[in-house]
């Protein structure tokens, strides 16, 4: 597959994620859109890793492995982030019974 | 204490081995598996019925004498004795020419027992001076409506000893031998 396709696909996913972050008000959905962004990155990294593998496999059999490992690390971190993030959201919900980010304006005054 | 099976409750804190329950679970599983090989106590009911005890009180039967005449004189003692007030009846005068049907001059034109109320205590049997009602060894079959549980005289009457002797004998059951 031409690498271009993967670049555009993941950028599109990334942009969709960003649009979600910008337009939605529900904290959980915003968070999900962020996860979507991370996944777009993951896809791109894997595609690149295979690209580099194709280019450099002769010189280095493991060429491109690092890209996939990075994806692995991103997943690991995302898992940790989710646990913390949801804990925060739940804590918030316990207090104000809403996850609407538009209510997050108490700090403004 | 009588059975000597009571056990003092042990509230000591559990040791580590106890607290993982493994041994106890295995013990329990041993108990259950041992039952796999035990004799099954179930009876294959319709094919195989369980014999009733001698004193079993089953469905009511309105008795006839040897000649097939009804014993009941509609005296109402059974209805009075009934603690559940399940029995109602209407009396009628025996007309001439009906002597082969009824033993006495008075008979029950209508005799109903509401089986939903009846508690099968057998007091009606005790009260009857004519030996007209007794509790057999059969059980009330299931039914779809309430109506069906109000047993009419026809449902209660014992088959005619002359016309259907086998059915009569069967309905009589072991009661016959007692009497």
């Amino acid at each position, binding site marked *: 597959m031409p690498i271009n396709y993967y670049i555009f696909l993941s950028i599109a996913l990334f942009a969709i994620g960003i649009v979600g972050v910008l337009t939605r008000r529900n904290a959980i959905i915003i968070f999900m859109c962020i996860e979507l962004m991370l996944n777009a990155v993951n896809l791109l990294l894997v595609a690149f890793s295979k690209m580099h593998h194709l280019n450099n496999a002769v010189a280095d059999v493991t060429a491109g492995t690092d890209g996939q490992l990075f994806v692995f690390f991103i997943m690991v971190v995302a898992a940790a982030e989710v646990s913390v993030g949801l804990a925060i959201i739940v804590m918030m919900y316990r207090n104000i019974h809403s996850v609407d980010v538009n209510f997050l304006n108490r700090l403004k005054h | 204490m009588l059975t000597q099976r009571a056990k003092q409750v042990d509230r000591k804190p559990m040791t580590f081995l106890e607290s993982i329950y493994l041994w106890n*679970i295995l013990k329990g*599983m041993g108990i*259950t*598996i041992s*039952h*796999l090989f035990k004799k099954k*106590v*179930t009876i294959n009911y319709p094919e195989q019925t369980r014999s009733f005890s001698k004193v079993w009180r089953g469905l009511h039967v309105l008795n006839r004498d040897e000649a097939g005449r009804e014993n009941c004189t509609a005296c109402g003692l059974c209805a009075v004795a009934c603690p559940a007030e399940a029995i109602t009846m209407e009396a009628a005068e025996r007309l001439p020419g009906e002597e082969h049907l009824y033993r006495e001059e008075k008979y029950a034109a209508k005799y109903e027992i509401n089986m939903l109320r009846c508690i099968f205590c057998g007091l009606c049997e005790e009260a009857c001076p004519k030996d007209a009602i007794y509790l057999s060894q059969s059980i009330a079959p299931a039914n779809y409506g309430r109506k069906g549980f109000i047993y009419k005289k026809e449902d209660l009457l014992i088959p005619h000893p002359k016309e259907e002797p086998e059915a009569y004998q069967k309905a009589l059951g072991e009661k016959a031998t007692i009497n």
Partner: protein
Amino acid sequence: MIMTLIAVDWWLILEKGVLIGGIIGLSFFIAMYTTYAERKVAAWLQDRRGPNRAGPFGILQPLADGGKLFFKEEIIPLASNRFLFILGPALAMITALLTSTVIPWATPFVTKGGSVIPMQVADVDMGILLVFSIVSVGVYGIMIGGWASNNKFSLIAAIRGASQMVSYELPMGLALIAVLFLTGSLKMSEIVTNQVQHGWHIIYQPLGFLIFFICALAECNRTPFDLPEAENELNFGYHQEYSSMKLGFYLFAEYINMFISSAVMVTLYFGGYDIPFVNETSWGLNSFWMSFLSFSVIMTKIAFFLFVFLWIRWTIPRFRYDQLMNLGWKKLIPLALVNMIITAAVILLLNK
């Protein structure tokens, strides 16, 4: 386009199709008869006889049950979410069936032409991990169903079930890692081959097996971990609003899960299709009988495990929810970790 179609290895597709069909059929069959066995075993353990009316010894009972479920009225609650309400049981069923893809059911079958047909739908490199991934997705069936019912008991049950499954996946995976230390591969086929060569893993990993087994119970929502269906607390659990075949799917999915998890356990710890103490390859059986024999061996082992599932169900009372979580997080996970570390240490020592 045509060239592409021609280029496809249709024979392979056919072969796999047959295999898949066979396994699905087998799964259904086993599941059906596990319901029967459940009742039978329950009866036996309680000194009863169990179903014996439909057919000789009641062996047609599952068919009767199925028929009954089929012909019952389909009720979809008005306030429920219609699409998800249907999706729930479907997902449960799909995930339950998918798991069987990587299990090697028998020794490979060699045709006359010399081509080898593995008795395994796909010998994936990730093997056991695939099972895990599918199992982890299986949670959705329960959650979606429970939520879509729009009934708080269902919801609570669904959440209980899901959290239970998520929690017990961890010790399960950790216990598994110790096995993977031994085999050095995630491929199911290699795991089995390794056991054929070096003896069953249960010898090396008794503790690991125990943990795995307990987790398998929890994953299948079986007693003593059947909290999602705790009738006396939650009416009927997450499938309370379900009726007819949708309910049937849930129930079936549970039994299929039992079957598959037994198969996985057998494959991982009890040598898969291996017959213990003998070297069956030396018997000189032809390939078909060899496959058949190994298949019956694995099925026997699975049957044993299914029996153990049932046996446990009728022995041990249900856990309380906090006990369940305590067991999972505070006992099993540390235990599994210790097991893992010890295994690793021993392997390192022996290799030195």
